[in-house]
């Protein structure tokens, strides 16, 4: 087998050196009745070319050739071949967690740079590298708030990504956390009045997302004030990180839980992405996840090493801040490279293009009779529209035009039937937007 660097005779010689007569002998400590007599029933073995053909065939069964207006936590942004070339260098791709600093300085410095970039973007003081994704980052942020406040009540905006809220619920269930949801108003933002009414001395955290699931920006400073009025912490989730190129960072938040997929990671059917937690220096010892810190060697040379490990499971075991071990390091590296390529101006320009496309798309769609924007709040690159018919029905028609239409909000919010979430990015061409509008117009024009 091509991955195995041994010849048959080498195997025999090594067995002989060990003093074993057969390979079976080495498995003798497994009770005989548990040792397989038959080979496993598995497909393969396949050559490299057959493997490629297999996955090409699977890819052809997917959505190649369709233009898509889906976002909702997974965004299709430009990626550079430079990023891919660099993260595929064996020295990055095939190395382990950098516990041995002297031969891991490459990964360590890159993590340190990633942490810095995340701080700059979020307006926070310290950031980790990394969490599994945005949803687990948000949950860990809430657990962090619980530890910091020793309170167990959490108020979560319904405008937070539905799947993120599901993940939080899964964890909360066993940890005696009570979760209450706060609705949204016609602007699409959290109902601040309701929030103010609910927040109290038992509230550990107020959890919002901005841009929220409807693509609407939340009033973070005001929400922080509300949360802080009762010494609760404000946790802000971010699923569309590109927005930070032009949108005010949630500097007033106590903890930011961000999904970094928008920074050079492909949609990849939902993963691997990269979650990040950013917070204030004073909270760092309750922050989960890996941290690289700057230090020096015996000759005073600058170097980096993993630090504050006393928060982590491999040192603290049951007292750790989290059970996370393997994280999303390579995705964090990709994001760091992508951001270095974009740079200050590139990130701003990228965000502005998204905003401009969304404005254009929204205007085009609103021209269609029966189609209107659902929420009045400020948006970035995603917005909800109301249709005169069920979104599902409309989408069936759009598929015929090779268009994947709006996400049906009804499946997450019963009250939002006939509402759809439309996302456009810098990769969505004007032509695609105009085709969507034209097709939608056509479909709605044809009587049921």
């Amino acid at each position, binding site marked *: 087998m091509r991955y195995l660097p041994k010849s048959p005779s080498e195997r025999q010689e090594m067995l002989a050196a060990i003093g074993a007569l057969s390979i079976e002998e080495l498995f003798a*400590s497994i009770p005989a009745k548990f040792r397989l007599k038959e080979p496993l029933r598995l497909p393969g073995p396949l050559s490299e070319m057959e493997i490629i053909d297999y996955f090409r065939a699977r890819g052809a069964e*997917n959505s190649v050739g369709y233009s898509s207006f889906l976002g909702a936590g997974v965004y299709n942004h430009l990626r550079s071949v430079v990023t891919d070339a660099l993260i595929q260098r064996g020295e990055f791709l095939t190395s382990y967690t950098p516990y041995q*600093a002297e031969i891991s300085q490459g990964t360590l410095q890159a993590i*340190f740079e990633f942490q810095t970039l995340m701080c700059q973007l979020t307006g926070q003081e310290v950031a980790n590298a990394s969490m599994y994704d945005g949803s687990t980052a948000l949950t860990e942020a809430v657990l962090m708030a619980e530890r910091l406040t020793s309170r167990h009540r959490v108020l979560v905006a319904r405008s937070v990504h539905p799947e993120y809220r599901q*993940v939080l619920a899964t964890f909360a269930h066993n940890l005696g956390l009570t979760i209450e949801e706060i609705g949204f108003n016609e602007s699409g933002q959290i109902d601040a009045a309701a929030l103010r009414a609910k927040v109290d001395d038992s509230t550990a955290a107020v959890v919002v997302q901005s841009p929220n699931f409807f693509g609407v920006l939340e009033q973070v400073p005001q929400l922080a004030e509300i949360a802080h009025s009762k010494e609760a912490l404000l946790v802000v989730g971010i699923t569309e990180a590109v927005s930070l190129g032009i949108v005010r960072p949630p500097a007033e938040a106590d903890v930011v839980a961000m999904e970094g997929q928008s920074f050079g990671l492909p949609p990849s059917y939902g993963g691997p992405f990269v979650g990040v937690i950013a917070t204030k220096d004073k909270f760092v010892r309750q922050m989960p996840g890996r*941290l690289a810190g700057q*230090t020096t060697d015996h000759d005073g040379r600058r170097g980096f090493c993993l630090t504050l490990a006393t928060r982590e499971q491999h040192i603290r075991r049951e007292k750790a801040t989290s059970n996370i071990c393997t994280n999303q390091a390579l995705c964090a590296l990709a994001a760091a490279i992508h951001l270095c390529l974009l*740079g200050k101006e590139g990130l701003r320009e990228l965000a502005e293009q998204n905003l401009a496309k969304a404005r254009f798309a929204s205007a085009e769609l609103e021209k269609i009779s029966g189609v209107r924007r659902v929420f009045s709040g400020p948006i970035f690159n995603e917005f909800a529209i109301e249709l005169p018919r069920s979104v599902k029905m409309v989408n069936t028609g759009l598929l015929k035009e090779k268009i994947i239409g709006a996400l049906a909000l009804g499946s997450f919010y019963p009250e939002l039937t006939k509402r759809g979430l439309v996302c456009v990015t810098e990769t969505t061409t004007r032509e695609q937007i105009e085709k969507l509008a034209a097709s939608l117009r056509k479909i709605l024009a044809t009587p049921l």
Partner: protein
Amino acid sequence: MPDKIRKAARHVNQSEGLIFEKSAPGKRGMELPPLDVPAVDARAALGADFARDAVGGFPEVSEIEVIRHFTRLSTWNYAIDLGMYPLGSCTMKYNPRVNEFVARLDGIATEHPYQPTELSQGCLKILQTLAKCLLEITGMDAITLEPAAGAQGELTGLLLIRAVLESRGNPRKKVLIPDSAHGTNPATAVIAGYEVQNIRSDAQGQVDMAHLREYVAEDVAALMVTNPSTIGIFEQRIAEAAEILHAKGALLYMDGANMNALAGVARPGDFGVDVMHLNLHKTFSTPHGGGGPGAGPVMVKKILEPFLPIPVLVEKGDGTLALDNNRPQSIGRVRAFCGNFGVLVRALAYTLAYGPGIRQATEDAVLNANYIRKHLEDVFDLPYKMPSMHEVVFSDARQKKNGVTTMDIAKRLIDYGFHPYTTAFPLIVSGAMMIEPTESESREECDLFIEAMRAIAEEAATNPELVKTAPHSTRVGRLDEVAAARKPVLRWKPASSGEAAD
């Protein structure tokens, strides 16, 4: 004169500052296609409350500077592509290049988790095929591919146990964990809402059955056992442990991080395991990438299937596949979307490459570990004499006499051209040296490792200072980790740190 160390030499290597130190206003590393719709002024459009100024301190560098920066950094790393990486328990094996290639194909990397099911059949078939392969390898009944790593798999597994016990009326209080366990086990138990009860190992390093019997009571939800254990030996009485637990209505969780020793040879489903996870970034070779991403699928017995996290992959009457979110008894969702799909793709590519031949990989892994054990057991202390599976665990007991610790030996290995072995745990071995070569090492590489370890043992006896101050060949020496933790510097700040605030 031939060099004393055959495996490695020193060579000139590029120095490099932080990317922020290379920044200058106006440099660009990436340009965008021109905007094809009317431009919008962000500040005007968003209003002062929502608009931000430029990101303070953000780098401004050119493409070649990015290429050089990260290429230079990469040369400071050790990697599987460079040589043996014998981290015990971490299973650093060869990461086939074709796996990277297929994970990036159009139609694979480009797919959105919310696109219509009829346009996702390729993705779903990949998930289904991998699921079937993993069930066949583990001998279990049902599976979820959603967990993003082993630790999340552990959590998912314990939540499943909790759910089934709850459905029987009482989730119970405790999870039993052997003292040899990996740190994630106890950490996970706590997050799952359980108390951790440590279980002693017996003289052979196996779970102490008497001790176990004592502890298994009505308040015990499960035993979390790693098999083969973290000292690389097979828990021979695991079936008995299962009986003990089952008799008291508790369940057996197996940490499958060491399946590299069993795939194709024995199946946990056959020896009483109720729930287990796999680390696809270990046993199934998806690259570690400097710490992740990974995937930690969880396999269960039938009784636990109703509780699997949503979404659950189902085959419809017409043979098409779909994701089912309507599972009333489900523990819920442990992660958004469908798990680390790109990692799952790589794991399937790996499995298809071997097919039933995966047994050969297991055999070679065990062969390498025993070959190394055989050639080192006369110079290093072997605390537990049970037969080794995929990994051999020595202790620094002999070298300690000269003040040389497992960490010193590990650091000295760097000078010999190897990555250190694992030193962190298990707690039942003081000064542990956890050595896992995996099947990916040639005899040549194993022999060089043995030569290096013997030479270091010799140095530890004759010139301990040399070992204690190692490594001597790297661009930076041992780093001051104490200072790093005492006054943490966790981010770069611009000279005029006002700027960063933004």
